[in-house]
């Protein structure tokens, strides 16, 4: 769209057919509804040159017309139907009054829920939520979008409260939910890789509102953990203007983690290391929430065996996609084993070791599809550390991840030393106290 609108070059965009609704929608909200768009079958990935030539010679599966005819016409025939130079799309404060049953049906039909029952956000319930922050209802908390190409929508304190009520959250949780909203990191990314978010709460707020950092912390056994995470998801999908399959959500398989965005408290009291929020610049007495995106993959094992623990951890790391860096979620038993076995008195020492341990042959690394899609172009553009990795011989063992993308969090109730690795990307740590 930039090359067409800003540089004045007539352009045709070619997409796969699964994305017809989403790309037309993006063109519409970008003020270019007449943008020339041509479609070919999905997938492109893994097809031979001959198969892709057949796409070129074939028909657009959406319009039924020859692909190349549409391409040529898109560059040569007038397209603009004329649209208003600017128009508003305001959203109302209130929904049209109706019965309770009809409103529940309406919220479902408008895709405002996660398809589980919600609490209807009456003015009384929303007011109770708003009473737990000194911030004004009309203050803008942040903005989100489901993907890079979409426009940002913004939301106020009141809009966050509405979604918090819908999720079943108690008013005392509200500052945590506001802090999540303030990160601007969506829990409803539309990536075709079907991502979820993860949220980690630190500091005194954990105890004040009864968050669980121990047995069952990651669900579904804590009201605070469950509903704070659910509120984060609902706020994301509604605050950003939707998360609808085929239109504003393209995750191919969906992601069960998205129901409450893997929301839990760190078990600071039983951790041998400093809390996660302290690693990111806050004081131990501060309350904070940290968010991760791109949560897709999980690996797990039990404890660290004396003889081969290094190999076991290496193989767990090696099983991750190199485009999904590891966040280790360690039960306190496993955390102490890393201290005892490896001598990792500080998290930083463990992260150094993980970075050095997670390696694969350069040739194999560069052949991963997501590395080809997202890292290889940056490497060829000279961006480090990938440009240096690109110079490695195919058989040279290179790090799978950047050190700064590896994280360690302690959670669990010590019923055993199970631990897991989540493949995900750290986004931001936000103060909860600022939203009380």
């Amino acid at each position: 769209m930039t090359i067409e609108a800003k540089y004045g070059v007539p352009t045709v965009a070619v997409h796969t057919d699964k994305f017809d609704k989403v790309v037309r929608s993006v063109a519409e909200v970008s003020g270019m509804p007449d943008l020339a768009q041509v479609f070919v079958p999905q997938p492109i990935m893994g097809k031979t040159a001959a198969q892709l030539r057949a796409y070129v010679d074939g028909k657009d599966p959406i319009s039924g017309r020859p692909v190349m005819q549409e391409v040529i016409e898109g560059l040569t025939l007038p397209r603009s139907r004329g649209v208003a130079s600017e128009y508003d799309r305001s959203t109302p404060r209130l929904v049209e009054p109706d019965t309770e049953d009809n409103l529940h049906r309406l919220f479902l039909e408008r895709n405002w829920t996660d398809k589980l029952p919600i609490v209807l956000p009456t003015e009384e319930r929303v007011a109770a939520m708003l009473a737990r922050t000194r911030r004004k209802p009309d203050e803008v908390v942040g903005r989100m979008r489901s993907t890079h190409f979409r426009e940002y929508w913004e939301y106020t304190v009141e809009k966050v409260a509405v979604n918090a009520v819908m999720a079943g959250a108690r008013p005392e949780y509200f500052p945590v939910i506001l802090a999540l909203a303030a990160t601007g990191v969506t829990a409803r990314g539309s990536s075709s890789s079907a991502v979820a978010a993860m949220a980690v709460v630190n500091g005194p707020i954990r105890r004040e509102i009864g968050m669980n950092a121990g047995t069952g912390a990651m669900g579904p056994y804590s009201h605070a953990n469950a509903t704070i995470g659910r509120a984060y998801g609902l706020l994301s999908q509604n605050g950003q203007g939707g998360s609808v399959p085929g239109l504003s959500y393209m995750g191919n398989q969906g992601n069960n983690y998205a129901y409450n965005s893997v929301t839990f408290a760190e078990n600071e009291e039983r951790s041998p290391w400093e809390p996660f929020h302290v690693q990111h610049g806050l004081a131990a007495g501060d309350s904070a929430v940290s968010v991760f995106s791109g949560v897709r993959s999980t690996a797990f094992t039990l404890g660290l065996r004396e003889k081969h623990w290094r190999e076991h951890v290496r193989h767990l790391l090696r099983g991750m996609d190199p485009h999904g860096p590891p966040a280790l979620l360690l039960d306190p038993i496993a955390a102490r084993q890393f201290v005892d076995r490896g001598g990792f008195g500080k998290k930083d020492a463990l992260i150094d070791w993980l970075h050095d341990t997670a390696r694969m042959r350069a040739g194999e690394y560069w052949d991963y599809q997501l590395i080809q899609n997202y890292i290889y172009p940056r490497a060829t553009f000279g961006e480090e550390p990938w440009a240096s990795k690109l110079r490695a011989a195919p058989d040279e063992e290179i790090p799978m991840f950047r050190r700064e993308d590896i994280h360690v969090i302690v959670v669990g109730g010590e019923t055993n030393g199970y631990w897991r690795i989540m493949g995900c990307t750290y986004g931001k740590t936000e103060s909860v106290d600022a939203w009380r």
Partner: protein
Amino acid sequence: MIVLDPTGYPPKIAAKPLAARLDTLNGRTVYLVDCRFDDSDVFLKQMQAWFAEHMPSVQTVFKPISSVYLVDDPKTWEEIKARGHAAILGVGH
């Protein structure tokens, strides 16, 4: 029963003009811009071959973007503006 609307506030939509279309592609240079996702390069080279076979008067340039599709690429857009007449971008997924 009265309840509140949970949706955020969208930005205003500002219309952007499309570029003037060409009267013909004959003798013109068309850039085939590879967004470097999945196997879009293989696809666009097949489209380039189609032009060579069916419209040899059209000059085509295969041009990968400089980085990933998430990053704006003014250097490439300026090159196309200076040296080309039209662009085909692909493949969106």
